């Protein structure tokens, strides 16, 4: 890692991130097909969602299968504010995030008392309650018909209307949010969350306030889902309850597990795979989703630790081959 020799451990992800943004920002220049730009916008939104859920399920060990509810709350809050109050995207987005954060905090309160499947069932129940409200509160949400005419974001006269332009917006948000999640994972809070996951009693004994970390994890991942929902609503400009049902909750969970639980790169890989795989299988027509389900099962059987474990192993091997001797000397230095 001579290239990054002068950079401290904390600044490294920032550089990676800037590099990724720079590389990815050329994407719309080369790829003109709106179809693939559309897919990459969705990938960006999924990355935000998966990163958020990863903080809750991967780092804190609280399995949630109701994440579509937060995504939906964010989307509906944002869309309703924009339609009914004519607020601009730059106001609806943070409000949607804060509002969803409160919903997450609210859900965390009963969850503090619960463990394992009981906690999971509460998140599933929450998902169902919110889904039912989306369908039934017709005066507000227009029920199964959905909300139409959500305005596109704009700055002055510049409208983020086309896929190519929206791509940059999502890219910036996704990169920023991933960076924040990364920093939190490697901070005191992240270590606190991991300690709650690994052994809650031991963590409590060591003075870790597990209730705080659980509340924080729920709120944090809800805010992420809310922001993703807001971006989703202003991109599609149409939302209906179908997008926020139990199937979507399992899909978000799928992203973080396929990628690798508890790892931010894993969440990103998982989000990319879950978004792109159905499109790549489009040639199989009606067998598309069958193969998708099969691949999921096969992937879990052969890679129970997620795809990131494969990349991780390769990376470790290359690193070892490149500077195997150097690593040895470094470690002796530390010991001395």
């Amino acid at each position, binding site marked *: 890692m001579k290239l990054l020799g002068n950079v401290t451990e904390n600044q490294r992800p920032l550089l990676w991130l800037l590099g990724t943004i720079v590389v990815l920002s050329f994407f719309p220049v080369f790829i003109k097909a709106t179809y693939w730009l559309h897919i990459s916008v969705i990938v960006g939104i999924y990355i935000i969602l998966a990163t958020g859920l990863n903080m809750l399920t991967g780092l804190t060990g609280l*399995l949630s299968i109701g994440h579509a509810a937060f995504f939906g709350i964010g989307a509906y809050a944002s869309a309703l504010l924009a339609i009914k109050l004519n607020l601009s995207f730059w106001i609806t987005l943070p409000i949607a995030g804060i509002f969803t954060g409160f919903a997450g905090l609210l859900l965390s309160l*009963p969850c503090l*008392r*619960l*463990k*394992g*499947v*009981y906690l*999971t*069932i*509460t998140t*599933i*129940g*929450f998902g*169902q*309650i919110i*889904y*039912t*409200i989306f*369908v*039934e509160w017709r005066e507000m949400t227009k029920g199964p018909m959905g909300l139409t005419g959500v305005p596109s974001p704009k700055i002055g006269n510049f409208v983020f209307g086309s896929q190519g332009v929206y791509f940059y917006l999502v890219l910036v948000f996704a990169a920023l949010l991933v960076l924040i999640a990364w920093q939190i994972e490697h901070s005191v809070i992240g270590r606190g969350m991991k300690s709650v996951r690994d052994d809650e009693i031991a963590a409590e004994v060591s003075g870790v306030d597990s209730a705080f970390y659980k509340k924080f994890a729920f709120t944090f991942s809800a805010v992420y889902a809310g922001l993703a929902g807001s971006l989703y609503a202003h991109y599609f400009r149409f939302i209906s309850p179908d997008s926020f*049902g*139990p*199937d979507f909750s*399992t899909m978000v*969970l*799928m992203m973080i*597990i*396929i990628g690798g*639980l508890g790892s931010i790169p894993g969440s990103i890989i998982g989000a990319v795979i879950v978004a792109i795989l159905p499109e790549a299988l489009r040639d199989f027509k*009606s*067998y*598309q*989703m*069958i193969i*998708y*389900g*099969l*691949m*999921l*099962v096969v992937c*879990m*059987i052969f890679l*129970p630790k997620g795809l990131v474990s494969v990349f991780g192993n390769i990376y470790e091997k290359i690193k070892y081959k490149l500077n195997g001797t150097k690593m040895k000397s470094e470690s002796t230095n530390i010991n001395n």
Partner: protein
Amino acid sequence: MGSLQILIQQIIGGLAIGSMYALVALGCALIFSGMKVVNWAQGEFYMIGAFTALTAYVTWKWPFIFAFLFSVGVMFIVGTIVEKVTIDRVRESDHLTLLMITIGISIFAKQVAILIWSPIGAVFPTIFGDVPFQIWGVYIVPQNIYVMLIGIVLMIILYVFLFRTKMGMAMRAVSQSREIAGIMGVNTKKMDMLTFGIGICLAAAAGIIMAPLTYIEPMMGVTVGIKGFVAAVIGGFGNLFGAVLGGIIIGIIETTSAFFISSGYKDAVVFSILIVVLVFKPQGLLAFSKGKKN
């Protein structure tokens, strides 16, 4: 007609739906206690069971009882094969991996059903009659009574199998301690296949007896599967009697709230009550009878 009669009618309807949920939940609880797997595909097997019976009953014109047995038998075989090729290979993984595998199975199963039976769905003809008869001012639909009776019969068969036969004892032994059961000469792999097969059979049976009361379509399993899982959990996960109790409670809450509050919001009511119950009894309703905390 007084409101008491209406309430009784709703409760009878709730008992019918509840015994269906109880069967799905029993399957869930059986699989969880025996194999430590949360089976997310339970609802899909409920749906495929109903469709298989529909094919046998309507297309091939078999008598209902044969269609029922055929479908349950097919689902048993499917269940054992699914267990053998998927879960058995990753026995040692954590429960999230196993959950993910069952989610994959549920996606697969839904799409296969769409391919075979079309996404539109079908109407299952009435078997037990849907003309209500009246007793003391209460209108009762015969179907509801039959659903309840078949549910009870199946539960009794399961009880006898689990608590009165050697194989059932072996299954319970595996659920208590896999290692010790293995040492004592129980073939744990075979028991896993059997457990999964029976768990899925129960879901399929619930699907078949419920099919004449509802319209059947490939997506119908999603909510039923979730509610079956919920029923299994509120009774105290892994506790078979709790699963039956949980199923019946959910059925009754669902029909009464549909009538007295709103049919659209019934799911929200069911799950709100569930969350409140869990806050006050975090280990499930029958947790006290288990003696140890998990």
